[in-house]
């Protein structure tokens, strides 16, 4: 186990290979963020019947660069009431994990360079996918501390929302990952990818019957603070949320981190559920095809992310919590039990039925509980005679202007 690159000790060649991988991944990420922002703006303008950026460069590709340069030269404000150290630290806490998470994503196959077996990914630590969970927890601090240290009300509200949201969805995210780990028999991302290789019906999305993928994707979107889960930013109600007080370079870092995380999350979805760089290759330039497959699949998920953003309105806070705690976590837990039961039954044969029954019963229980709670919560106390019952969806004409 572990990175085969280091199996014969570390010499200069290994060092150079690692350095090259790091530099390539770093610049790949920076450029892809630039392209991603442009891509998002273009696609979303397509879906809104607009043209989108088209001034800077061909098709407006350089618009992001122009925006970045503009942000770079803007005044860097530090609010009077801000906690100076934390305020400066928070953007870093957001940006650095965004860079680091990508390092465990396998973006290509395995190649041999000067007798060194090189996996095309920056690092292949034995803890593998747990690294993602660890770093995404650190990213929560970035958002939370940013809001807290701003010394301002709206950012504080945004950071409270963000921390609650990101921590709740992390549970569902983790449970979905555990099903993958069970199926692929390994934490290392390379192991996970290898276990899905060659045949597409071995992809985890099919082997795990879609549900963990859906849970992971939804929870991942929530983890990214992307629409429709962007309550932490909530520009309409919080004036920008946790980054309201940020400007210039520091804002740039949040901006960068947000889109970088989007790319990374799509890449992780591809890695965990869609076989990573797996796909039919050809005899010529063998190393290239897996990379292209990986990029292609990632772009598909990026498109879906943008599509979601164009389609769904922002969730209300209670809807967000309902979805996270009453749906995703119970379903993920139930599915985990099912997957575990199936795994065990491979050795214990007869256990499969028992496992499925236990899983199904738990799933049904969780579902009914959440539904009962939901109905109770929505309906409220029974009204006196002659009054309309609360919680029953009123006619459109009778609805109050604000949701509540």
């Amino acid at each position, binding site marked *: 186990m572990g990175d085969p690159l280091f199996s014969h000790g570390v010499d200069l060649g290994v060092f150079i290979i690692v350095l090259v991988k790091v530099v390539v991944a770093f610049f790949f990420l920076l450029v892809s963020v630039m392209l991603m922002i442009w891509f998002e703006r273009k696609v979303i303008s*397509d879906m809104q019947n607009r043209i989108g950026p088209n001034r800077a460069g061909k098709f407006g590709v350089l618009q992001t660069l122009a925006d970045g340069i503009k942000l770079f030269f803007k005044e860097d404000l530090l609010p009077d009431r801000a906690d100076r150290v934390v305020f400066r630290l928070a953007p870093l806490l957001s940006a650095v994990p965004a860079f680091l998470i990508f390092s465990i994503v396998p973006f290509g196959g395995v190649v041999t360079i000067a007798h060194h077996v090189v996996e095309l990914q920056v690092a292949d630590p034995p803890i593998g996918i747990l690294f993602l969970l660890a770093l995404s927890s650190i990213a929560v601090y970035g958002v939370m501390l940013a809001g807290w240290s701003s010394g301002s009300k709206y950012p504080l509200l945004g950071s409270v929302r963000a921390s609650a949201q990101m921590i709740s969805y992390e549970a569902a995210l983790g449970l979905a990952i555990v099903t993958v780990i069970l199926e692929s028999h390994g934490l290392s991302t390379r192991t996970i990818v290898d276990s899905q290789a060659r045949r597409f019906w071995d992809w985890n999305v099919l082997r795990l019957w879609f549900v963990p993928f859906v849970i992971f994707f939804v929870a991942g979107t929530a983890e990214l603070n992307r629409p429709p889960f962007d309550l932490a930013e909530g520009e309409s109600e919080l004036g920008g949320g946790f980054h309201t007080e940020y400007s210039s370079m520091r804002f740039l870092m949040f901006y960068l981190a947000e889109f970088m995380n989007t790319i990374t999350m799509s890449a992780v979805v591809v890695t965990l559920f869609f076989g990573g760089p797996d796909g039919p290759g050809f005899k010529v330039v063998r190393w290239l095809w897996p990379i292209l497959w990986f990029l292609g699949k990632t772009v598909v998920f990026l498109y879906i992310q943008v599509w979601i953003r164009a*389609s769904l309105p922002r969730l209300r806070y209670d809807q967000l919590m309902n979805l996270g705690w009453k749906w995703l976590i119970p379903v993920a837990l139930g599915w985990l039990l099912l997957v575990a039961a199936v795994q065990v039954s491979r050795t214990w044969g007869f256990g499969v039925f028992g496992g499925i029954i236990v899983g199904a019963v738990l799933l049904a229980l969780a579902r009914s509980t959440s539904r009962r709670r939901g109905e109770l919560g929505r309906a409220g106390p029974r009204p006196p005679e002659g009054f309309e019952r609360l919680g029953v969806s009123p006619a459109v004409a009778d609805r109050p202007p604000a949701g509540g």
Partner: protein
Amino acid sequence: MGIFGETNFFGGFYVAAKQVLRPRATTEYPAEKRPKPPRLHGRHVLNRYEDGMEKCIGCELCAAVCPADCIYVRGADNPAQAPVSPGERYGFVYEINYLRCIHCDLCVEACPTEAITESKLFEFSFTSRADAIYTRKELLVADDGRPQQLPWEDWREGEDRHTSGWMRATSPSGAARYEGEVQWSAELGYGVRAPEAGQRGARDDEATGNISLRETQRKKIPVRFGGRRR
């Protein structure tokens, strides 16, 4: 409350995806201009008769009727040797302050000689208060009958076609027997313009210079509002 259907959960995705194939609503403005509505109120012009005489007689009715107080007129007696207008007097000072003008067109209504009319030119962004005040020299149409283009005005070939308030002048004020009757004098550079057809519908857009937005913008009108089916 299902999750399918256009107004529900997955319907949102369908609605967004559908837009990708539809034509863009955007007009890339500085490069490309939308046709203007025929009765748009732009900046004013001071018209001249076909023989070059100014139509303004300095009666100051426009200044009197102006609700924004943006017009300043001083009339003077025509010089006997070189009369400026056919009447006894002419407007020797005529200024409109475009920082105040609200383009209500009341001056055009008030004018007894069709001297002041509103063009369709609205794209003028001056950078000083002095530039905002258009003088008589600047408002008068040039010798070819077209409005003068000031350095800060953005208008292009053909946009002068729709200058002057000839359509208002053809307005029959509700009297059916005046519909389609030419009721105003000849104009420098344009002569007598063809009458607007009004409600009879027998319009000659070519002759009147009228633009039908329903025709030119046809591609952008949704089917449910009477647009063409694609």
